[in-house]
């Protein structure tokens, strides 16, 4: 902003993505955000830090992830070739570890021994608990009680890894409420605590930092698709909750004007406010949890409750960089319903033997809509952000797998 009263740290910009982003937080957090901004700006250019991160991503996390040609899925749809970026194969089962590891390394460098995080589906919580175990740090995870119920396995994993999981019962007891409670913890313990935010959300510098740690997804994918196909894809598709896997999958393709970028939000079970988490079709710009972006809200500015079968997409706002890409028309945002996502889980499982997370299944659902409209020489790249083992309880109920057959 030109009216800035205190100069921002220039190397990271001012935290604005067009009109979106910024920093709307209680004053108590400002010193910590500025400290984080300076520390992150320093490690961004630091060879030793980047080298340590790259080595751990390779040997501990399992990067690079494969780019896999889904031949049977593509043939069954009779259109474009579908490639899957296999973030589901990463240690802990989702892309979230890219960022959790990066931020934990930064926390270590800043001398912060106590880590807090929020989690929706539990994948960011598991990733954070994992890196805290790796570095011997104290770890507290905030999780909505509704999400603890539906992603129970991840709660056990976090506890096994030594994290304390604190249930949050306020609001709709999902991701938004977990972030509120994590921010209350941070504002109270700000002098000793590092908040590992798990999506490309929140106050500056989080959206930039989280995107940077996931940028590796599109950096690898771009090179891999050129190796496979000798050309860039026609489209890149990713699901969008807060938007971390999507911004990571899109980022290196943004300058490539011929590559369509498609984000898939949670269409839930209907179009009425409260029945979905499709911010770009049902939301308006506003401020939630530190950042200016699209927010599902009523006409009095109260933030709406949301619904999605996938806990990781069940959130009322979206990362500010996506808001900018949306307004620019550089990316398009569509949605898949609960039923379409459940169907996509089954389709990918039975054509390719790959069980995607319910979140990622939203992207797969969109691919099944796009592919038949394209030529057989066209290429679609889908980011499979995580695997679906965590969803087996929900899938068993929804698909009636407990009986003789589905």
């Amino acid at each position, binding site marked *: *902003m030109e*009216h*800035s*009263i*205190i100069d*921002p740290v220039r190397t990271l910009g001012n935290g604005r993505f067009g009109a979106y982003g*910024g*920093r*709307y*937080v*209680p*004053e*108590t*957090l*400002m*010193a*910590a955000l500025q400290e984080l901004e300076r520390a992150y700006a320093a490690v961004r250019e630091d060879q030793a830090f980047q080298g340590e991160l790259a080595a751990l991503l390779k040997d501990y996390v399992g990067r690079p992830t494969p780019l896999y040609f889904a031949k049977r899925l593509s043939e069954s749809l009779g259109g474009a070739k579908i490639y899957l970026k296999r973030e589901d194969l990463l240690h802990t089962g989702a892309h979230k570890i890219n960022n959790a590891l990066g931020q934990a390394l930064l926390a270590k460098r800043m001398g912060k021994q106590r880590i807090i995080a929020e989690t929706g589906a539990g994948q960011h919580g598991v990733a954070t608990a994992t890196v805290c175990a790796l570095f011997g740090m104290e770890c507290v995870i905030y999780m909505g009680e509704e999400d603890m119920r539906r992603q129970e396995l991840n709660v056990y994993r976090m506890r096994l890894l030594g994290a304390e999981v604190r249930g949050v019962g*306020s*609001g709709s007891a999902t991701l*938004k409420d977990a*972030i*509120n409670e994590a*921010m*209350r913890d941070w*504002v*109270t*313990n*700000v*002098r000793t605590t590092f908040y590992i935010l798990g999506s490309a959300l929140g106050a500056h510098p989080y959206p930039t930092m989280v995107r940077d740690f996931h940028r590796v997804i599109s950096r690898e994918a771009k090179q891999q698709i050129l190796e496979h196909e000798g050309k860039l894809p026609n489209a890149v598709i990713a699901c969008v909750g807060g938007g971390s896997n999507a911004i990571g999958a899109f980022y290196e393709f943004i300058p490539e004007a011929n590559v369509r970028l498609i984000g898939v939000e949670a269409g839930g079970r209907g179009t009425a406010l409260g029945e979905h988490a499709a911010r770009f079709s049902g939301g*308006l*710009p*506003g*401020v*939630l*949890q*530190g950042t200016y972006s699209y*927010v599902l*809200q009523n*006409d*009095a*500015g*109260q*933030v709406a409750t949301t619904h999605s079968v996938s806990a990781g997409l069940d959130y009322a706002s979206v990362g500010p960089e996506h808001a900018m890409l949306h307004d620019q028309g550089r990316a398009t945002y569509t949605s898949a319903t609960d039923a379409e996502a459940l169907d996509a889980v089954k389709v990918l499982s039975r054509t390719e033997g790959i069980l995607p997370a319910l979140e990622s299944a939203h992207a797969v659902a969109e691919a099944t809509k796009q592919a038949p409209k394209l030529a057989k020489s066209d290429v679609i790249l889908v980011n499979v952000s995580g695997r679906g083992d965590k969803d087996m309880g929900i899938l068993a109920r929804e698909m009636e797998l407990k009986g003789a057959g589905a």
Partner: protein
Amino acid sequence: MPIQFPKKPGLVIYLTAGDPDLATTKQIAIAAIDAGADVLELGVPFSDPLADGPVIQRAMERAVGRGVRLTDVLTVCREIRNERPQAGLILFSYLNPVLRMGLEPFCAAAKSAGADGVLLTDMIVEEAADYMAAMKNHGLAPVFLAAPTSPDERLKAIAEHTGGFLYAISRTGITGVSSTLSDDASKLVQRIRQFTDKPIALGFGVSNAEHVRTVGEYADAAVIGSAIVAIIEKSAPQEAPAAVAEFVRGLRK
């Protein structure tokens, strides 16, 4: 009315508007003013009050559940202003309800409702240029907060831009009652004093007469919020104004 603290220490009393209902909020506000409150902060209920502790969270949840909205709070503000022209009136809100109305329409409505100023919990000075311009257009005071974690350069900017008074936060944390005042509190007020002669009100955890007396030794006013909201929560609606008045009278003893 400019905000004034003629008696030392001054008293700033916070209420979540619409808890238990709007008519009772008005009665409590008038009772608190008559019992000695110099400034009343009218809290706008919000779905996601991330700077607030459990007491105010519950009050906001109840008020949001009843459908209380910013326009209702402005109506109550106008009613209180009509009955008590001398009191300081501050609207206390998270940013989103204000943005939803629009900064300029909000400031016009707040002025017309008789508010003296506005405090936005999630608005920091760096992001406040448009907000301050709209506030200035309508002659409203933008109250900014300072925290124990704010370095001197931030305190200087906050002191320069705040209007009415400067709200000093006594401790790192969220709103809520505490048994003792943090050591951070007096140090923060001393640091702010280097930069301004504007009144300084200290809040967060200030919850009884002993705290108020202590705050009076170094600050101009004490802000009491959760302790009041807790009394309202415990009281039957018709008894809440008298209960709050008795508590407020006791704060300066």
